[in-house]
């Protein structure tokens, strides 16, 4: 029984079939090595001194006392940085170490290196920093006020990171004609990624001048370029390795500790350095999901046809841009949901404040706008007396329609089928009897929400994958993973694709994780793109390698048969090749040994097609990714019970009907959906990220409450497995959409249960109880 191999591990795992992940065996035995697990011999510990003010001018940093502490090797400030000292992907506005000023409590003032963690802590306390405290900006609404402090004075747009507008038709006129209309304000708060492995890495300056870094990152190749400029090294001298990541979810999309690691390694006398954030530091310094303040006005005609949307969006990006402009662009693109709306005005902005930095997080702006749009459409259904599912179905886009932003939908669009699937589901069919059967002191509610999640980078940056794979001399296959596997299992899927095409079992595969010296640049693990883009490249590489293997085998068979052999008569089978007409078989290892090393290595490039439609509005968003060509679609249902005595919510059922294209591996598909739904449930009910005057009040896992096994019910996942012609084997992307509609589905269910809508922030028991009180249901049986 303790045999650690599946009895069928030697079988090909065909595309479409579940395959246990290749990394799972090492992860259950503790053998898998994460960046945080590395303790090179003779290492120095690096640590970061953080400011005491959310906005202050840096006057002086006195490092003498810290340096005098035994065991302290270096205390570095911005003066020790040779490069631009500016990080950022598009907007390079974030110093590695603060120079002129600090802009939030999570900024970095000094970087310390010491022999022990104890010496490091003592030195941190001994660094004396002189500040001139500046007035701070915490309310994004005030960002443009004349008397508000400006965070980045060199920017011509001041505190406005980016603004944008989408215009279609005449929404003001259409709203005056609408039979029904609703106006709703919705706000969402920050969300912490809370990946279990906090930001971590080790680095060393090699004797040849190469800076080698093993770090928990979703973007090893981009990091290299970003770092090179900031620290003044050639990118060719920076070697980044991304092993297994202990979660990412967008929070490791870009530089986290890499700047510190590089700087530390350049001042450690050649010794390796390690930096690993505590949970508190991870929360303090890491990026978050952007908070949104939204106002939506939505109108429809007598029959329920949506006529107009007028929306205002305000995102707080915090002290630095991070990926704020790109999150903003995607939010603008998806703000109107998966519906036909002929008249649209969406005005939005993302602004700087002295709050924590917001950036990429699974969903990338979509969960926030879905929270607003999907509550608005439920309110419209209530106002017009429409069934909320019918109203969505009636207005759902199909291929060839224009999205609310006016972009023609040319890819597969499965939202209609998702809604139909949900409509047929027993949870929906039997909802009335379930709602009516609430126990004493309970009220029940069922809510749904629908959503579109764009896939890939959009038109500005080439969404490109460079796959590489190798037939080893022993006949095994090595798959080089160009895109980080932060836990989502894309690396295994690449192996499954290779095995499917080459007819080889999963246990003949091995993986090489991202490494700028071994794998090829293939972009970030983000945007629901990893399998779409790299998978497409992988297909080409595997086919190319398969052709070569068959050609070499055919040559060998032709020598045996003394006549020429057609390539299509050669079948690649587990561990061997067979010449089908003659039945002759050749072991794959034998064929491999007769191939040159360069022949056994195959690479292939795939660049995702972009959407080049002319835009009537939102043109400035194009360089930040708008518009996309493809989207996944979904509808989610939450069935819940609230306690009229305590306001506590128990979520009973969560159903996700999702069109992410063809499902390549059902087990991994479910992992993505279930994980996203659980994060969405945390976002909706538990994870009340609180900031006061720029100071995080939920700075650890005892105050920032993640859902536990008791809080997440068993979830139902029904794939709507459409076939997207552009996708690898017809798939689109499943990494993000699972989180998108959970909050509004829960909010809509709570509105049904309590009779009152809670439009702000985390939907906690206090607010639910207040809603029950408002409708006279508090403590009602």
């Amino acid at each position, binding site marked *: 029984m303790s045999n650690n191999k599946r009895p069928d591990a030697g079988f090909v795992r065909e595309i479409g079939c579940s395959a246990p992940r290749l990394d799972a065996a090492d992860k*259950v035995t503790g053998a898998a090595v994460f960046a*945080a697990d590395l303790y090179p011999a003779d290492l120095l510990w690096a640590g970061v001194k953080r400011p005491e003010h959310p906005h202050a001018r840096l006057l002086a940093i006195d490092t003498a006392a810290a340096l005098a502490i035994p065991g302290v090797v270096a205390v570095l400030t911005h003066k020790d940085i040779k490069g631009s000292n500016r990080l950022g992907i598009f907007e390079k506005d974030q110093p590695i170490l603060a120079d002129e000023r600090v802009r939030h409590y999570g900024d970095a003032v000094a970087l310390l290196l010491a022999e022990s963690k104890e010496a490091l802590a003592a030195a941190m306390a001994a660094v004396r920093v002189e500040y001139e405290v500046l007035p701070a900006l915490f309310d994004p609404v005030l960002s443009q006020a004349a008397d508000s402090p400006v965070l980045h004075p060199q920017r011509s747009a001041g505190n406005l990171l980016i603004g944008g507008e989408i215009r279609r038709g005449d929404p003001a006129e259409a709203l005056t004609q609408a039979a029904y209309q609703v106006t709703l304000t919705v706000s969402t708060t920050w969300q912490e990624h809370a990946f279990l492995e906090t930001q971590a890495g080790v680095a060393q300056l090699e004797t040849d001048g190469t800076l080698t870094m093993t770090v928990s990152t979703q973007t090893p190749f981009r990091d290299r370029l970003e770092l090179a400029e900031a620290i003044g090294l050639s990118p060719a001298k920076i070697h980044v390795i991304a092993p*297994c990541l202990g979660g990412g979810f967008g929070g490791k999309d870009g530089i986290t500790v890499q700047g510190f690691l590089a700087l530390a390694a350049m001042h450690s006398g050649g010794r390796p350095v390690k930096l690993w954030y505590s949970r508190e530091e991870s929360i303090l310094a890491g990026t978050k999901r952007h908070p949104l303040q939204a106002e939506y006005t939505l109108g429809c005609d007598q029959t329920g046809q949506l006529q107009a949307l007028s929306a205002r969006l305000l995102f707080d990006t915090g002290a630095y841009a991070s990926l704020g402009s790109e999150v903003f662009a995607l939010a603008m693109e998806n703000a109107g949901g998966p519906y036909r709306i002929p008249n649209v005005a969406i005005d939005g902005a993302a602004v700087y404040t002295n709050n924590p930095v917001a950036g990429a997080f699974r969903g990338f702006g979509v969960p926030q706008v879905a929270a607003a749009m999907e509550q608005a459409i439920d309110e419209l259904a209530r106002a017009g007396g429409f069934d909320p599912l019918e109203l969505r179905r009636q207005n759902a886009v199909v291929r060839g329609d224009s999205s609310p932003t006016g972009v023609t939908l040319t890819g597969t669009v499965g939202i209609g089928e998702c809604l139909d699937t949900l409509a047929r589901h027993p949870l929906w069919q039997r909802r009335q009897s379930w709602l009516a059967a609430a126990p004493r002191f309970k009220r029940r509610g069922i809510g749904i929400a629908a959503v579109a999640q764009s896939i890939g980078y959009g038109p500005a940056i080439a969404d490109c994958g460079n796959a590489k794979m190798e037939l080893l001399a022993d006949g095994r296959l090595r798959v080089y993973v160009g895109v980080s596997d932060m836990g989502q299992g894309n690396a295994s899927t690449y192996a499954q694709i290779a095995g499917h095409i080459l007819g080889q079992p999963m246990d003949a595969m091995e993986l090489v994780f991202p490494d700028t010296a071994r794998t090829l640049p293939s972009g970030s693990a983000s945007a629901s793109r990893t399998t779409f883009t790299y998978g497409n490249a992988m297909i080409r590489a595997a086919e190319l390698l398969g052709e070569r293997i068959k050609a070499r085998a055919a040559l060998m068979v032709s020598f045996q048969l003394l006549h020429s052999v057609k390539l299509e008569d050669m079948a690649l089978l587990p561990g061997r090749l067979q010449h089908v007409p003659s039945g002759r078989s050749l072991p794959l290892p034998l064929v491999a040994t007769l191939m040159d090393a360069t022949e056994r290595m195959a690479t292939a490039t795939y660049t995702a097609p972009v959407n080049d439609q002319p835009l009537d509005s939102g043109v400035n968003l194009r360089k930040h990714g708008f518009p996309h060509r493809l989207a996944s679609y979904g509808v989610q249902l939450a069935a819940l019970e609230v306690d009229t005595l305590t306001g506590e919510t128990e979520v009973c059922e969560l159903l996700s009907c999702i069109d992410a294209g063809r499902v390549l591996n059902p087990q991994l598909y479910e*992992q993505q959906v279930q994980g996203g739904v659980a994060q969405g449930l945390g976002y909706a009910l538990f994870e009340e990220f609180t900031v006061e005057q720029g100071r995080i009040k939920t700075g650890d896992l005892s105050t920032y409450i993640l859902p536990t096994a008791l809080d997440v019910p068993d979830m139902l996942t029904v794939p709507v497995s459409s076939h997207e012609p552009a996708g690898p084997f017809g798939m689109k992307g499943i990494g993000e959409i699972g989180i998108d509609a959970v909050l509004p589905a829960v909010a809509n269910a709570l509105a049904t249960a309590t009779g009152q809508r809670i439009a702000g922030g985390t939907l906690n028991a206090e607010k639910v109880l207040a809603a029950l009180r408002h409708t006279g249901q508090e403590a009602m049986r």
Partner: protein
Amino acid sequence: MNLSFTLNGQQVALEVAPDRRVVDLLREDLNMGGTKECCGSGECGACTILVDGQSQLSCLMLAAQLQGRSVLTIEGAAADADAAIVQQAFVEHGAVQCGFCTPGMILATLDLLQRIPQPNREQVRHELSGNLCRCTGYQKIIDAVMAAAVSLKGGQR
């Protein structure tokens, strides 16, 4: 202090500060990185080890507390027939994603199944509620624990 205890079936004796955290002792001094640290404050369960068969949080334990005790970490689990069954169930049922909670989950599961050999899903949820996972939503972890419970009884359903 001179610390002596059993680690994964092997006797270990070493000189260590009595107030060294057990998680640091394992990871930094004994080169056993399978025991993870995630919060350092007893909230998440990632650093779970078994001490005399009971799950304990190694970030909240000090080295001196191990004196004369028997410790099982994830590195020693594969040699334990029951643990190997639990590990296999985690692999097959898709209970592993990023894998950072996995060692702690598996050791907590061992403790759980020793005390409650035939749990229902609610009991599993309750027993594992001290182990946070950010990737899976727990469902497949619970599937794996339920399957392991069946296997450990000799495969009877």
